[in-house]
């Protein structure tokens, strides 16, 4: 039974990688009105593939490996899907599918038009971004990861300035240049590592590094370059200059995917770098620094989210704060539950953040104003959207039984287990700040409207359904995690 599962897993891994790529190319080539349907079809097929892959990997407890082109790792590139990767893949798939369905009506060509600019670009670059994200998750080759991260950036940047507003061009350019700076440093690091051992496959490198007792200067410089480069792409505090304008300026579905999926890719590579390449690195100084930067991000992001006057910049800063939580996994890596906590927080944040941004998008289009102080009467006009906003906010805050809560709980457990009490402070204070800016919005929104009640404008039901689905799935994730009891190893 298991070798059938293994064979099936191998094929599904390849399909998971190729389907979105094929979808993007076809959507571009055929274009016109059918581009949207091609993309949606790809999304559904991809959903089926990933769900079955997830079922095989998680249920059968196996790790699927696939040598591309049949060549052994030092020569060829290896794909690998273990429990963690599949979970993140599944979350990303859910988020992408939900966002595509909720945005299916945007940028539609007029009856006389054959094709619109934004429509073609959106329906081409979104599946492309998806393919790049899948490659980042599955690939085990450092240079292949570089190319995938580059494609991710090239697809994300044009989407940021899709609406053609002047300030979004500056934001997109700053995002592109800073991401490029990060990936050039990453490339330099990968090159140095190749210079040392002549291979770029993570498995083989882990073997080589485990033989060392002290890191040669070339390896420490390479790891420094790669870590800093990837941190530039995850927008941790000192390097977060590009995230707020980009995520706030982009159209809602795009900023949902940027915050929920794109930012996580570089983090997954960082996790792989620090946990698979160098197991047992929790006590090094670097892990402590990452923890400190994470704590700083939580505080700074939280405070600035509180001080924003508009909805989308607030949610963008909240992304910086929540990414801070993920960086706390590094110093706590000694504990068993830290890895599971980081993973769960990554997934629950992705779902909740996507719901928040999509809800914000609906609020801007149908309520007309996204200044937080002017949201009075929103509860009356768009009750469902606000409900989704609230549920997603609770998950971010970490109220039981949401996924956010379980993640924070496991993180605290890890902090106690490893005896580093200090890390509990940012975790709890972050929760407080998050509660601050979520309730601030809810408080205003639930207030009766000063002006006569606006007509309850019709938010498209599919969009509402998708936002609710995302928010509730973040909730269900928490329940599922509670169900399993112990965090996955």
């Amino acid at each position, binding site marked *: 039974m298991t070798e059938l599962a293994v064979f099936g897993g191998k094929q599904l891994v390849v399909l998971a990688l190729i389907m979105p790529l094929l979808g993007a190319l076809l959507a571009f080539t055929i274009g016109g009105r059918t581009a949207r349907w091609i993309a949606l079809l790809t999304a559904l097929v991809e959903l089926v593939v990933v769900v079955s892959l997830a079922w095989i990997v998680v249920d059968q407890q196996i790790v699927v490996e696939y040598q591309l082109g049949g060549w052994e790792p030092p020569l060829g590139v290896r794909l690998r899907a273990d429990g963690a990767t599949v979970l993140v893949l599944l979350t990303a798939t859910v988020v992408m599918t939900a966002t595509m369905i909720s945005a299916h009506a945007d940028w539609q060509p007029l009856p006389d038009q054959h094709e619109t600019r934004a429509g073609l670009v959106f329906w081409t670059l979104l599946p492309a971004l998806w393919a790049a994200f899948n490659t980042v998750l599955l690939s085990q080759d450092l240079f292949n990861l570089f190319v995938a991260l580059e494609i991710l950036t090239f697809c994300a940047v*044009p989407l940021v300035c899709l609406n053609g507003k002047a300030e979004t*061009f500056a934001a997109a350019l700053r995002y592109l240049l800073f991401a490029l700076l990060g990936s050039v440093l990453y490339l330099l690091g990968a090159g*140095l590592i190749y210079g040392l051992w002549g291979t770029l496959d993570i498995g083989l490198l882990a073997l080589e590094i485990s033989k060392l007792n002290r890191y040669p200067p070339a390896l420490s410089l390479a790891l420094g370059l790669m870590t800093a480069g990837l941190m530039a792409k995850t927008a941790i505090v000192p390097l977060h200059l590009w995230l707020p304008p980009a995520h706030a300026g982009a159209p809602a579905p795009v900023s949902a995917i940027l915050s929920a999926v794109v930012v996580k890719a570089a983090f997954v590579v960082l996790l792989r770098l620090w946990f698979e390449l160098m197991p047992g690195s929790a006590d090094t100084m670097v892990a402590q620094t990452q923890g400190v930067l994470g704590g700083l991000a939580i505080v700074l992001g939280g405070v600035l989210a509180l001080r924003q006057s508009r909805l989308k910049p607030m949610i963008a800063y909240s992304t910086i704060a929540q990414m801070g939580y993920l960086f706390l996994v590094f110093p706590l890596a000694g504990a068993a539950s830290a890895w599971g906590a980081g993973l769960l927080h990554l997934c629950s944040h992705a779902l909740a953040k996507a719901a928040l941004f999509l809800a914000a998008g609906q609020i801007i289009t149908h309520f007309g104003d996204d200044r937080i102080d002017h949201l009075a009467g929103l509860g009356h006009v768009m009750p469902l959207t606000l409900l989704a906003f609230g549920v997603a906010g609770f998950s971010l805050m970490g109220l039981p039984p949401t996924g956010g809560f379980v993640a924070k709980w496991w993180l605290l457990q890890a902090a106690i287990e490893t005896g580093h009490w200090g890390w509990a402070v940012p975790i709890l204070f972050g929760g407080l700040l998050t509660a601050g800016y979520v309730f601030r919005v809810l408080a205003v929104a639930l207030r009766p409207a000063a002006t006569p009640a606006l007509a309850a404008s019709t938010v498209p039901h599919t969009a509402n359904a998708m936002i609710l689905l995302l928010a509730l799935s973040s909730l269900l994730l928490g329940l599922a995690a509670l169900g399993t009891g112990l965090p996955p190893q």
Partner: protein
Amino acid sequence: MVASTWFGLGAALIIGLSLFQVIINPEPLRKVLAFNLLGSAVFVLFGVLARRGGGRIDGVAFADPVPQALIITGLVVAFAATVLAVALVLRLLQAECATQDHDTECRIDD
């Protein structure tokens, strides 16, 4: 000191120069130019590593083919990045020109 090591040192120096320009120079076009310089210097380092991995068969020097392939892929990716960056800069200039004085026609190519 083998010739390739000299090229490595030269590449390290150019990386330092171009990083300084990327961070300090405020003009976007000069930043993109510095990025290209940075990229080519990184690829020279790859080339040096390739040359060290290679050798000399009956008088004809050869280098490790894998980094060469990586460099070619890297060059194409860097070119794509440059094209996107330059297009963004020109579009930004046009948008800025449009916002500053609405009267003149800010066509990007005339």
